[in-house]
């Protein structure tokens, strides 16, 4: 007798996503009446390093800064209806996030949730440093984390967790863990795990499968983008899924929105690698079943990789940027002249990138081959933007001063100078044997 489908809703696709997405998703999950899980994906490559820097400043921080805004509006309904929550919003401090969730529940007058944290991803400690040190020789390391899979998430849910807080796990594992726990699949049932992985892949960027990041007026129209419905995957016992969204929300789900997200950040579609499985979508099929309902089938799986990917973030110096605008007659010529002046003033400090916003500023290359190939035009509204990176802060700051000095020393009529200096983080990655990176879960009971 097959188990009933599991509904997995996703209410965030990155740290910085809309924070009011969860409400309609949770309402739809509860209205379905079946088993349901809510996930938030909030941890891009560098987000974790930024969280680690925050934790260095204050050891109680280092988790998703918008945790309260994401969870607060739906925590009562999820706990009341048994909708479990799985997220990587623990970032560099899953325990801190767990304590914060307890404090939030208490302040809302709710029962104490059973909160589990997943540990094992953080490799910047003790003997585990030796696993990745050769890949980071000479670097000023901020964080080193392995991409964990779904196993500890599943274990925590089986053990009764209402909320599972992770740091670095592979994004699709946020959906695979609940599926493993719900269906009780064998942990080497590669086809089913691959199908749940691709369900997770479709969910992991939030609205990117349901009409977000899709619209192109006149070609690809999307209704009510101000109120996009975030996606829900109905995962079946065989692992295949149907993607839908809450009724009454904006956005659209059709074969085209699903295909765009299915291939998003995929390289070889016959070997999509995660810690849980090697998924194969080479013969995948996408079928519209009804309005805003699309089924994904035909996914196969192969045995998971023997190693885990480790991402190491390190400090690389400073990025300096400056902008100034020119408008009216000969605006483009004046902006080009300003760029030439800056090149001469900053000569010797390293490569300077110049963009003419409104003429050519995006498709171009850092070396300026593209811009040089564009014929000089007579654009009347142009913003010059220059950028340079340097390991030395004082050198990077030179760019800021030179752009500002264009006010009195540059071409006529330049206005609206803005400058910014930002610390840069780089990443290197390596792989380590899975057996060297054990993961586990434990329950956290105390509030912050």
């Amino acid at each position, binding site marked *: 007798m097959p188990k009933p489908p599991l509904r997995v809703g996703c209410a965030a696709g990155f740290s910085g996503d809309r924070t009011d997405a969860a409400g309609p998703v949770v309402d739809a999950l509860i209205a379905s009446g079946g088993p349901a899980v809510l996930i938030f994906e909030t941890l891009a*490559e*560098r987000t974790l390093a930024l969280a680690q820097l925050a934790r260095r400043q204050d050891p109680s921080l280092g988790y998703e800064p918008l945790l309260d805004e994401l969870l607060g509006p739906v925590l009562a309904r999820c706990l009341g209806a048994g909708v479990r929550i799985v997220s990587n919003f623990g970032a560099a401090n899953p325990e801190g996030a767990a304590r914060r969730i307890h404090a939030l529940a208490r302040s809302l007058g709710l029962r104490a949730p059973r909160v589990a944290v997943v540990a094992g991803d953080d490799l910047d400690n003790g003997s585990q440093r030796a696993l990745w040190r050769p890949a980071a020789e000479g670097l000023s390391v901020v964080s080193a984390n392995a991409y964990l899979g779904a196993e500890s998430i599943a274990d925590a849910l089986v053990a009764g967790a209402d909320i599972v807080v992770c740091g670095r796990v592979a994004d699709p594992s946020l959906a695979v863990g609940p599926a493993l726990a719900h269906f009780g699949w064998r942990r080497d049932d590669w086809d089913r795990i691959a199908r749940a992985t691709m369900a997770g892949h479709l969910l992991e960027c939030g609205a990117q499968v349901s009409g977000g*990041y899709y619209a*192109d007026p*006149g*070609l*690809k129209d999307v209704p009510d983008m101000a109120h996009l419905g975030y996606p829900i995957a109905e995962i079946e016992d065989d692992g295949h899924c149907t993607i839908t969204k809450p009724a009454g929300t904006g956005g659209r789900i059709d074969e*085209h929105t699903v*295909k*765009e*997200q*299915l*291939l*998003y*950040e*995929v*390289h*070889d*579609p*016959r070997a999509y690698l995660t810690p849980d499985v090697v998924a194969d*979508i*080479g*013969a*995948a*099929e*996408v079928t519209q079943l009804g309005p805003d309902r699309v089924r994904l089938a*035909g996914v196969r799986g192969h045995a998971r990789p023997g190693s885990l990917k480790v991402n190491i973030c390190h400090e*690389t110096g400073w*990025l300096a940027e400056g902008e100034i605008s020119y408008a009216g007659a000969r605006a483009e010529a004046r902006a080009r002249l300003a760029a030439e002046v800056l090149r001469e003033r900053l000569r010797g400090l390293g*490569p300077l*990138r110049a*963009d003419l916003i409104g003429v050519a*500023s*995006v*498709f*171009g*290359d*850092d070396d300026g*081959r*593209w811009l040089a*190939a564009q014929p000089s035009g007579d654009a009347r509204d142009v913003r010059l*933007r220059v*950028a*340079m*990176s340097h390991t030395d802060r004082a050198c990077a700051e030179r760019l800021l001063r030179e752009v500002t000095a264009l006010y009195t020393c540059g071409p006529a009529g330049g206005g609206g100078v803005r400058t910014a200096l930002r610390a*840069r*983080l*780089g*990443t290197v*990655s390596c792989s380590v044997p899975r057996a060297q990176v054990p993961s586990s879960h434990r329950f956290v009971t105390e509030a912050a």
Partner: protein
Amino acid sequence: MGAALTVPLHRLAHGRSGDKGNRSNISVIAWHPAFWPLLVAQVTEAAVARQFAHRKPAAVTRHLLPTLQAMNFVIDDVLDGGVNDSLNLDSHGKALSYLLLDLPVEVPPELAVHLVGPS
């Protein structure tokens, strides 16, 4: 029979860019199944390499997904170092799908009825 039309790829297909490090992937998804053979014949690795020549990609690999009438291009070393190192405003290369979708494609007149968007 009239002569073949030359139109930008975005009238036959849509797509999205993603990034991992200094590598971009860009999907090309047919608006209509009738376009699939044209895309396979004309949106080749060599054509895409030419479209991105100014960014000096190290390699262009095309993966075909006939059941989806879609192809996935993996373009190596095309992001000026990627999100951590590039000086580009769009260091992820998010906009690069639109550079690929500008590729000119020849369409036989009998398929013109399926073209998307204004000519």
